[in-house]
């Protein structure tokens, strides 16, 4: 009677008496792509961990039917044998091993005596790559030489090699470029045709709309709705996720823009491993007071390298001339940059943002601790007062400031990192992917904060891979591609197509000298030169 490949019925999972999942029902047919949406902490990952037996049978309540039989797996090995394969947000590849070795990791083809059968593995790996539409990939090459998109492909090939019937993709596109995403989506379409079912978890709802047949939304561990795609669009999914119609996701607000306060001249960054290659090639631009400058571009365009060089944090060799208020300043290290009022919130929150062993409060005051000292002693009360103010101002959700920062959700961790930098009273604030891994509600608050800061006269440089974000928040948009500046647009109903076209166009290059926008609403160097 049921033609479902997999059914989860009434799944309940508790941690220390707190219900993370409270009766979830989802089901999926062979060849179907199910979008799983929900804010951070809604329970998506927990649900998938139940399905893939990261949480073994018996630690949760409810029932899973797999090909109409109850599935009682105790280990990931068993669910993988059944054909349920999960691909995590962070890729699980060994960078030094080759494509083929990665695909067969743990399932190597062996000859007598445990010797690896390389010819057989290369052959099978090449077949898989051809199947995925990428026959040109050299399967003997170390994975670290591949781009993010191709690495994702290797993960999928690895899953296919395990005879996947149900593929769970957890935020697969978070580090992919637009073109790589379209390749990924094509591959998923191909898999669907072959009868492989997919669960697609993503914050990027455009992709969900593009690829999924049905969308299940969960919120706070509750199953909200499972709806066919034909009855949905991005706005309705968002509404289901947050439980209310979200009108002001991106507040577009007019704010005064003053004179030029910041100039970056001739920034060039060399690649860490390969000094012949320039990650950033002679980029110059200006920034005005209270201006929000978005930097768009595909992943690997050199945007993060550019801004970290400005902040004195680029790990390799680089050249950069940074001017503030017409004078050249020393921004050769974060210490020096912050002293001049130039601050950066880095892209990788886990590695460069939070200090995991310190509390929420201690993270917030890390950069300005000296301000609270009296005779070398930290004035705990003054510090706490500031922390309380900051928590209130940024609507940071934490039970108390003494909790470890790692106990917070991604969005709240990001707010803490932002707050840390704001306390230094920057004049120029660089935000690198400020909303990565942040849920919809916290995103809106961060956008509101950015606009508010600009209104106060702080100039903001925002690097972002989310086009919608760049276009709705920025006053002006720089477009980078392959290390050079390919576009500089005043954001006056700027279209996504224009930006994307500039990012891709290899011939485009905006003047090596100064790329500055003159009076508002006038496009400079439109499209290309």
């Amino acid at each position, binding site marked *: 009677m049921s033609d479902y490949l997999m059914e989860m019925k009434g799944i309940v999972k508790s941690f220390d008496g707190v219900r993370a999942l409270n009766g979830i029902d989802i089901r999926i047919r062979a060849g179907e792509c199910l979008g799983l949406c929900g804010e951070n902490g809604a329970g998506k990952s927990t649900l998938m961990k139940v399905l893939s037996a990261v949480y073994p049978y018996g630690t949760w309540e409810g029932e899973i039917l797999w090909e109409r039989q109850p599935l009682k797996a105790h280990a990931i090995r068993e669910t993988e044998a059944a054909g349920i394969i999960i691909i995590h947000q962070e890729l699980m590849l060994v960078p030094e091993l080759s494509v083929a070795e990665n695909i067969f990791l743990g399932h190597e083809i062996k000859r007598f005596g445990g010797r690896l059968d390389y010819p057989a593995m290369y052959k099978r790996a090449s077949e898989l790559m051809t199947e995925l539409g990428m026959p040109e990939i050299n399967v003997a090459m170390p994975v670290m030489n591949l781009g993010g998109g191709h690495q994702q492909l290797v993960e999928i090939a690895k899953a296919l090699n395990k005879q996947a019937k149900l593929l769970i993709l957890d935020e697969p596109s978070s580090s992919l470029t637009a073109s790589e995403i379209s390749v990924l989506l094509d591959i998923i379409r191909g898999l669907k045709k072959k009868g492989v079912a997919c669960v697609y978890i993503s914050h990027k709802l455009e992709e969900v709309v593009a690829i999924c047949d049905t969308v299940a939304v969960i919120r706070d561990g509750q199953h909200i709705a499972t709806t066919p795609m034909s009855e949905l669009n991005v706005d309705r999914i968002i509404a289901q996720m947050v439980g209310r119609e979200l009108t002001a996701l991106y507040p577009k607000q007019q704010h005064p823009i003053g004179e030029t306060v910041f100039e970056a001249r001739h920034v060039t960054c060399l690649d860490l491993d390969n000094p012949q290659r320039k990650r950033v090639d002679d980029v110059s631009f200006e920034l005005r007071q209270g201006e929000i400058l978005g930097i768009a571009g595909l992943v690997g365009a050199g945007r993060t390298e550019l801004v970290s060089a400005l*902040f004195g*944090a680029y790990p390799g060799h680089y050249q950069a001339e940074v001017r503030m208020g017409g004078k050249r300043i020393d921004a050769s290290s*974060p*210490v020096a*940059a*912050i*002293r001049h009022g130039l601050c*950066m919130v*880095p892209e990788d929150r886990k*590695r*460069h*943002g*939070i*200090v*995991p*062993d*310190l509390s929420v409060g*201690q993270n917030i005051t*890390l*950069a300005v*601790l*000296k301000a609270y*000292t009296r005779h*070398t*002693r*930290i004035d*705990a*009360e003054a510090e*706490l007062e500031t922390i309380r103010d900051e928590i209130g101002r940024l609507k940071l959700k934490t039970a*108390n400031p*003494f909790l470890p920062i790692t106990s917070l959700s991604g969005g709240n961790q990001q707010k803490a990192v932002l707050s*840390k*930098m704001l306390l*230094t009273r920057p004049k120029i604030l660089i935000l690198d992917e400020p909303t990565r891994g942040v849920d919809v509600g916290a995103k809106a608050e961060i956008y509101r904060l950015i606009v508010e800061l600009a209104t106060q006269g702080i100039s903001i440089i925002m690097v972002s891979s989310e086009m919608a974000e760049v276009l709705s928040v920025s006053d002006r948009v720089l477009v980078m591609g392959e290390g050079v500046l390919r576009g500089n647009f005043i954001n006056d109903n700027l279209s996504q197509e224009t930006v994307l076209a500039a990012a891709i166009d290899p011939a485009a290059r905006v003047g090596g000298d100064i790329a500055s926008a003159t009076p508002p609403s006038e496009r400079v160097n439109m499209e290309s030169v």
Partner: protein
Amino acid sequence: MKELNIKQLFGQYKVLALLIAIAIIWSFFSWQTQGDFISARNISNLLRQMSVTGILACGMVLVIISGEIDLSVGSLLGLLGGVAAVLDVLHGISLPLTLICVLALGLLIGLCNGYMTAYLGIPSFIVGLGGMLAFRGILLGVTGGLTIAPVSDNLVAIGQGYLPAWLGSALGFALLALALVLTWRQRGNRKRHNLPAAPLWRDVVRLAVIGAILLLFVRTLDSYDGIPVPVLLLLALLGIFSYVTSQTVFGRRIYAVGSNMEATRLSGVNVKAVKLWIFGIMGLMCALAGLVNTARLAAGSPSAGTSGELDAIAACFIGGTSMRGGSGTVYGALIGALVMASLDNGMSMLDVDTFWQMIVKGSILVLAVWIDVSTRTGRR
């Protein structure tokens, strides 16, 4: 539920578990030695034995919290103790000048180690390993491989002197008063900021325990010769280092650097300078430990401080310092040092063979860290 509470209590107050461990070790040795182990004379001895490792552990805990390691401290202790003996015995230099020279040399060598680790990017493990060999070599060169004795009485007093009884008692009362004031202020602060304060009974019990320990400590030592000078030095260091790690910017930065160096650097903290000074302090502690050691032995020996680095590192880990950096306490490290010293002392009293002593100490270290690791993962 009850069980959970106990586990939480241990998680929060690791020091409690350590104190219980010490109680067990002490009871065992007292039983085996018919009470000789806890005689005033032996306790005084034990604490003096512990002082050298304890002084090193004070510095080492900072190094480990910051995510580094220093293997050269044993040799450096020996070298600086040897230099002190050479200055004192062969050159007849006055005590204050000797102290200044040795402390300055210790600080300088520590800063050198720090510079190589933080600014030149040489892993601290290698810098330490190199130093371990080189400093021992210099010591052999300086002393010509001979024990240098006898050192002057003034220097000996640093290692073998005692405080008069009345001063010891006064000190005990002062410490108790300090604990009272601090607890009072903490309660007041937490109340003012609407934070959940620990129940009153728990603070009262805590103060009562502190008082009892202080009373026992002072009375026991006074009933022998008084508080030994090196033990006083160690107590002072405990106070200073606890203050630095919990109340100052530098202390906060040590934890931040050890927990996530990149994030700390990007927050505008000069992480290299922090590391430089941590190693500087470590060098200073080596100088103090070297002086106490030479004074205790009344001689500068070319083998002084051999494997001292291992005792200090073991003390830190037994005291709950995290291997990967970012967490740990000074008092924990000192209790760890006390555990090691108790084992040494007790087993020597029982005439246990040296090889057994080494086996037991090694096993205890591994066991202690295993317990620490398993309770840590249990919490997640």
